[in-house]
């Protein structure tokens, strides 16, 4: 009796150890950028893709600029983050710009490189560069439109009650607008909304 008890305890321990070791093994897998993967209710890379897709399409198809033949020049002034999370909104504007450039309907001012451009120009005119190969001054293109936006969020927690899980709701809204620099008029505006619910356990090990 005692012997069989000892034996079964030994086997049980062995199985448990094996299971523990298996669960502790490190794994890696490649995820498709199109796969919507959410561990919680907060903003993730899949959201960026949804936002970019949903905003680029109407900008290319419905905006008053979509029929312009002279490829209007746009400057991106970024998306203001008004959420309660640290979100790098420059990732969204970078992707929007990239999609619009690929569509071939717009041109963009490289605002982030302005300092470097000025540095390079002053170097070229500083003496070492042969006059024939110098770029011409005062030939930079001026922007006609500003692309800007705001990312906002509203959070809601489930009220306190007896339960083992708590639910959080999060609402994100990204508004994007295109402003005519000459007239100060907003030529186009659109927004995209994401609402997500997540539940977390109250108790864990």
């Amino acid at each position, binding site marked *: 009796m005692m012997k069989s008890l000892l034996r079964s305890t030994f086997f049980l321990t062995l199985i448990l150890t094996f299971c523990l070791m298996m669960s502790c093994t490190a794994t890696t897998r490649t995820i498709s950028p199109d796969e919507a993967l959410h561990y919680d209710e907060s903003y993730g890379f899949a959201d960026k893709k949804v936002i970019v897709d949903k905003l680029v399409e109407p900008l290319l198809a419905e905006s008053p600029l979509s029929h312009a033949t002279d490829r209007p020049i746009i400057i991106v002034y970024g998306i203001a983050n*008004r959420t309660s999370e640290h979100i790098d909104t420059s990732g969204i504007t970078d992707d929007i710009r990239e999609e619009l450039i690929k569509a071939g309907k717009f041109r963009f001012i490289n605002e982030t490189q302005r300092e470097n451009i000025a540095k390079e120009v002053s170097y070229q005119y500083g003496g070492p560069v042969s006059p024939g190969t110098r770029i011409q001054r005062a030939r930079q293109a001026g922007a006609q439109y500003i692309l800007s936006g705001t990312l906002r969020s509203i959070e809601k927690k489930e009220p306190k009650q007896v339960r083992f899980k708590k639910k959080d709701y999060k609402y994100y809204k990204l508004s994007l607008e295109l402003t005519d620099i000459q007239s100060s008029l907003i030529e186009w505006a659109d927004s995209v909304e994401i609402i997500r619910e997540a539940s977390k356990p109250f108790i*864990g090990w």
Partner: protein
Amino acid sequence: MSCISHNRNRIRTVSAGSEHPVSFLYFIVVWAFLFFAGCAAGPLRDARNAFYSNRPLDAVSALSDAKPFSRQDSLLVSMEKGLILHHLGRYEESVREFLKASKQMALQDIIRVGEQTLSLVTTDWVTEYKGEYSEQLWVHTYLMMNFLILRKHDSALVEAKKALKVLEKHPKPLSGDYFTRSLIALCYENVGDINDAYIEYRKLAKLMRDPSPVASPLYRLGMRLGFSDEVRQYKKFIPKSTLSLLADRSSAELILFVGLGTGPVKVSDNIVAPPSIRLSFPSYSERSTGSAEVTVLDSSRRLPASVITTDMNAVARSSLKDRAGKIIAKETARAAIKEAMTRAVERKNDEIVGILLRAALFLMEEADTRCWQTLPASLKLLRVPVSRACNIKVVIRSPGGVDEITLPDLKVYPGQRVYRSLRVNY
């Protein structure tokens, strides 16, 4: 930490006279627990000592990433390291540490059954340190300061919103933190959300006995929002000389964050009842008052400044007091469980085992006195209108003496806000 070392010595004395094999086993278990608890706190103690001995670089290296820290103390490590880096002016690194702390606090929103069960038969030192409500708030406060200094206004606003969540969750114990509330308002103001900024200033005016320090921003923002009735009310608190400055749109503003004195530490208060029941509760003990007079001079001319102060000692105390009910309930449950355990062992084993277990559990009953120890005793926010060219000197008269600090390379442009952070320990 000193309490742990003290207990370790006492247990050695108890076990030295015993030759019983079972008692030796108990001795090993208890000794091992206290030894590891003590070891984990070693680098933290070294860092704090170095920080208060005016060796902040040594303090940072004591908490370097290469050193292993127990999971239980990792939040404290991030808090202490973040603050020391802020003090050194390494704001980007400080942000990284405080964000680590913030992330950890968010993940701690769960009751760990294993940890809680173990703490019911041992001590709260075995649990992961979650930080007092006040400490949780001050992580966001320091992040706001860092982001404002780094001119990352969007990120500062994110932290302001996080701080608001903590304030909304624990309104009563944190109501005295005027500094954080004014920082929140400032974060809204910086991004142009003047209505939200006005709301925060108004909340602050209601909380403060004297609303004079926030009367100027309330007057200025109220004018822009068209709240004429309220503007008239706040105008009464503004001196005439300041009113003319408020009208001057070319005036710039210097915002000084001044940390003064040495923040409070937790100590253990004990109640002993026969036969060997020990109830141990944490309480805050002041190390300095944080009271000081801060004067801002521009080429020896005294500049008008509005000052908002948070008494960190008082906020920390009220924060702990708010949690007192939970602490008492857990302490009582632990005492009952330990007594039941001891009686069960006494019934089944010989007397010496019971006595040794009683002694071990008695000594192990130690209040969780972990806390963020590099905090100042008070935090002051000074708003100083300054001209374009200025040669600013800050004079701090405290019980520790007179400190004169010159702010180097202060360049301001019309309408601009410039942020600087100072710390004086005494």
